[in-house]
C-alpha cells in the first residue's frame, strides 16, 4: 500500500561536493523493499522529487541524494522540520536467496539504492561483492560503511584511470548474478561484459511516480513500460538502452 507519510527530518548532512544524506522518521511504520523509491515534496516546488531509498533501519528511512537542480538544492538546505513523502514506490530488487552470491555494481549516485540490497544480502549470509565507480575519490559514497560489512568492496575512480568495467574484468566477476545502478553508459557496458543474469535499476524524470501519468514510460523489449511502476528495476535484457540515453 502506497502511503503519504509525514516524516520528521532527523538529520540532513552533506556528503562530498554535491550529495547529501537525509534521515527521516515516518509517523507510521512502513515496509520498503531494497530498490524501491519515494517521492518527496519539496516546499516551494510543484512536483515531488523521486529519490531511491538507501535503506530503512529501525523505522528510519535513509535517502542519499545528488543535487541535480533547484529542487534538490532546496531539499539539501532543509535541515529540520518535516517532509511529505509518498512511499513505497516501484518494484525493488529481487532479494538474493540465503547463502547465494551477489555482485552489486554501482556508479555515482546509482550506488545508493544498492546499499539496502547489500545489507539484505549480508543478513542472508550471501557472498557479496560490491564494485562502485566514481569520478574522483572525493565523490566516493558509502566507503567506510561497506568496509565495516562482511563483503568484498572495490572502488574505481575515473581520475585514477579506472572504472567499474576494468574492475569487473580484473576481478573476473562476469559470472556472478548482479544488480546494477548508475549512468546509462555504465549499465550498458555492464550489460555487454556480464555473462550472468542480473537486474538494472533505471531512472527518469517523473510526473506522478505511481503509474498514472505515463510521464516516465519507455519502450522496452516487452512493450512500453513505466519506470516508476513497472520498474525502476528491470531484469537484464528488458531495457533498450537507446531509449534511456
Amino acid at each position, binding site marked *: 500500500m502506497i502511503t503519504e507519510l509525514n516524516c520528521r527530518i532527523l538529520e540532513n548532512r552533506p556528503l562530498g561536493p554535491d550529495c547529501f544524506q537525509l534521515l527521516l522518521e515516518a509517523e507510521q511504520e512502513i515496509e520498503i523493499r531494497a530498490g524501491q523509491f519515494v517521492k518527496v515534496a519539496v516546499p516551494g516546488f*510543484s512536483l515531488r522529487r523521486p529519490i531511491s531509498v538507501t535503506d530503512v533501519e529501525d523505522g528510519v528511512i535513509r535517502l542519499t541524494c545528488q543535487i541535480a537542480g533547484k529542487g534538490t538544492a532546496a531539499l539539501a538546505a532543509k535541515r529540520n522540520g518535516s517532509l511529505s513523502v509518498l512511499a513505497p514506490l516501484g518494484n525493488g530488487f529481487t532479494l538474493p536467496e540465503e547463502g547465494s552470491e551477489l555482485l552489486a555494481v554501482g556508479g555515482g549516485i546509482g550506488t545508493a539504492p544498492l546499499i539496502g540490497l547489500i545489507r539484505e544480502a549480508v543478513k542472508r549470509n550471501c557472498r557479496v561483492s560490491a564494485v562502485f565507480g566514481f569520478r574522483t575519490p572525493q565523490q566516493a559514497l558509502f566507503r567506510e560503511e561497506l568496509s565495516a560489512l562482511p563483503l568484498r568492496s572495490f572502488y574505481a575512480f575515473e581520475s585514477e584511470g579506472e572504472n567499474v568495467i576494468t574492475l569487473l574484468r580484473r576481478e573476473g566477476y562476469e559470472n556472478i548474478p548482479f544488480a546494477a545502478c548508475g549512468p546509462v553508459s555504465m549499465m550498458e557496458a555492464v550489460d555487454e561484459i556480464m555473462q550472468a543474469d542480473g537486474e538494472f535499476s533505471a531512472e527518469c*524524470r517523473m510526473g*506522478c511516480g505511481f*503509474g*498514472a501519468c505515463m*510521464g516516465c514510460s519507455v519502450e522496452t523489449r516487452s512493450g512500453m513500460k513505466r519506470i516508476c511502476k513497472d520498474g525502476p528495476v528491470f531484469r537484464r535484457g528488458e531495457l533498450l538502452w537507446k531509449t534511456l540515453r
Partner: protein
Amino acid sequence: MEDAAISLSVTLSGFELDNPLIPASGTFGYGLDYLDFFDVNEVGSFAAKGTTLHPRNGNPQPRIAECAGGMLNAVGLQNPGVHAVIRDIFPALRNVYHKKLIANVGGFSTEEYAECARLFDAEEIVGIIELNISCPNVHGGGMSFGTDPRTAASVVETVKRCVKKPVYVKCTPQCPDLVTMCRALEEAGADGLVLLNTFLGMRLDRRTGKPILANVTGGVSGAGIFPLVLQRIYEVYPKVSVPIIGCGGVSCAEDVIEMMSAGASAVEIGTQNLIDPLTIVKIRRELPERLRELGVSDIRTITGRAFR
C-alpha cells in the same frame, strides 16, 4: 445546516454524478493506478486516459518538466488503443469501479475519432464521450482539429452521427477565438464543453540551453493556469447553453467553488492528483463545509453565480 443536508450532486446531459469532482484525462490512467490510495468510486466520474483507434507509444523521453505553479508534459497520447482498452482494461475496471466514466477520444482523422467514439459508445461503463481535439503533444492530430471552428464542428457532426451518448468537446486554449469555437461546437451538436486542455509551453535546460522535453514543446498545467482557465470559462458561459466542465489548475475545494461560480457545472482535476493522489478525496471531504460557510445547500446552484 448539517453536512448531510448539503447536496454535491450534479447532472451532465442527463448523466448523474454524486459529486462534481472528475480526475482529468491523462492524470488518472484508466482508474486502476489509484486503487493503492483510495476507493475510486469516491470520484464523481473520471476522464480516462486519452485513447486512440490504434495503439500509440507516445513521445520519447524526457516527457516531463517543471515550472513555477505547475508542470509541462509531452506524453503524446501513449495508449494501448481502444480495442485493448475495451477488451483488457474495462473488465478489470468493472470489478472495482461501479460508476460511469468519461471516455477521452483522440485522433488523427475525422474517421478515426468517429470509429473510436463508436466503439466506446457501445460500452455500458462509458457515460460521456470527451472528444480530445486539444492535445498539444501530437503532430497532425489533436490540437490541429481544435483551432479552426469549421474543422472542429465537422469532427463533432461526424461523431454525433455514430454515437448515442453525450459528446463533450475538450477545447484548447491555443484556439484564437474560443467563444466562436464553442458556439460552433454547440451548433454542430456538442452536448457539452470541457474548458480547457493544457497551454502550449516549453522549458530549456539551464546548462545546455536546449529544450528539456524531447518533443520540444509540452502542455502546461497546474495551479498557475487556474486564473487563465477561469477567465475563459467566464467568457464562454454566457454565450452557450450547453454545460461546461471546468478544467485547469484546480487544487482545492475553494478552486472548485470558484470555477463553478464562473460557469462550470462540474470540475476536472489533473495535475494536483499527480502531486497528491488523495486530492479528490480531500476536496470531497472539504466541499460541504466550504458550501455551508456560503449558505449553499445544493452545489448545482453555484454554477454561474458570478452572473447573478
